[in-house]
């Protein structure tokens, strides 16, 4: 029942954005972080056939059905995470990168990330002075149930709070920073393990960058729910 096809016409020399009518699933196997349940992944395959040519392109991704929310707890100021409605105690590890010469093989990622899962972690925090981690990193975090806190490329030491004080306004080219951030979000956004985008480490990005990131990354209204006075959950849409 999960095989749908749609007829679409694409004008010459152009590109269109298309939203596939949503697919309904009854009680899908949910993706859970390490220690909370199974990391169920579905193989989503998309292909496009062109009349008179045949299959023109295809794309696939292992996708996990899950809902990850996080809010700041007023009493402690700490961030509370929930996965599929269940609060989770975060056992997090710091992550800079796997190798200083960027020898980032799949095998290396699998070993490193399984090691953290075996140590009973359920989150890895990718530090802002390291990398926007790679799809292979996220794939194994999907597989082993390690949620990922991914920082953009701002650190307190280098951007305004270090010794000497420097780069108070972050990198020279803010448009380039935002272009890289948007492209990175498109590269990584389908991974079940991606739990949180964070502006930087120990530092808020420059106002214009922070505002743009918040705007680009705000949740679509369809996914923003609120509690009614009778403590019922309601979706905005």
């Amino acid at each position, binding site marked *: 029942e999960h095989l749908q096809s749609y007829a679409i016409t*694409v004008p*010459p020399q152009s590109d269109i954005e298309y939203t596939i009518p949503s697919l*309904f699933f009854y009680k899908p196997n949910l993706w859970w972080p390490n220690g909370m349940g199974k990391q169920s992944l579905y193989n989503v395959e998309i292909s496009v056939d062109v009349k008179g040519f045949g299959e023109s392109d295809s794309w696939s991704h292992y996708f996990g059905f899950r809902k990850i929310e996080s809010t700041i707890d007023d009493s402690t100021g700490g961030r509370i995470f929930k996965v599929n409605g269940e609060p989770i105690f975060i056992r997090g590890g710091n992550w800079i990168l796997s190798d200083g010469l960027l020898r980032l093989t799949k095998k290396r990622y699998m070993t490193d990330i399984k090691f953290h899962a075996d140590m009973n972690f359920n989150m890895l925090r990718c530090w802002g002075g390291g990398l926007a981690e790679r799809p292979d990193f996220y794939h194994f975090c999907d597989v082993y149930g390690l949620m990922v806190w991914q920082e953009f490329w701002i650190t307190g030491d280098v951007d305004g709070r270090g010794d000497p004080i420097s780069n108070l306004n972050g990198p020279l080219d803010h448009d380039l920073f935002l272009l890289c951030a948007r492209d990175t979000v498109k590269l990584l956004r389908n991974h079940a393990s991606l739990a949180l985008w964070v502006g930087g480490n120990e530092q808020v990005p420059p106002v214009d960058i922070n505002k743009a990131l918040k705007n680009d990354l705000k949740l679509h209204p369809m996914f923003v729910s609120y509690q009614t006075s009778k403590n019922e959950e309601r979706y905005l849409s």
Partner: protein
Amino acid sequence: MAVAVGKRVLDTGWLAARSTEVALTGVQLTTTHPPAADPAPPAPWMSAAVPGTVLGTLLKNNLIPDPFYGLNNQAIVDIADAGRDYYTFWFFTTFQCAPSANQHVTLNFRGINYSAEVYLNGHEEVLPKGMFRRHTIDITDILHPDGNNQLAVLVHPPDHPGKIPPQGGQGGDHEIGKDVATQYVEGWDWMCPIRDRNTGIWDEVLISISGPVNIIDPHLVSTFHDDFKRSYLHCTLQLENKSSWIADCTLKIQVSTELEGNVCLV
């Protein structure tokens, strides 16, 4: 015979050479004077690590000691002392690809640090700066008719590699923060400085062959209702028609449950 639609990773057969030791231009390297790989690349060319960094390639050829052992990192000249040209490197490879009519081919870099010029069969393309961005080049019209293609990439280090103060410190002199690149490379309290600041083709290189229409960056989102009993999978994507005629397409999406052993249920 048409090549199959699909993606192919270019991660073997790469050569590299320091730019200051190569007198040829990118056009000459990819037309009249390509470096030979067999039986062994002639100096200053060497076998390269792609994806990887300049230091990774130098280490692969035993031209530097492994920086992770002992004080070896001290023996490797820092970019601040040697200058950016010292770590500006050519990377060269060849690949087979002869698409048929109506097929389109793109060359995709998932990460280059920090900027580069790409030459393919004598054609130049300048890639913009930035370590964390993908680059896609439509190479359909510049592929060689006989299918033998020659690719050279001149990779430049970050614009502001900085200088490591004698006392070290978090992020060295912080100059690297002027670029959109990883900052740990100037050294931190837990890390020695990386001498080439991770310059290189540091992530996957891919040849993608498609028909007239290709799929760009699908976005998958799941929503839940009735206490996670009901769920919807939403997908938005871009479709690009590179041909000069209207494309009547059939878009298919298939979701199969996870692989149990080798059983795949649809």
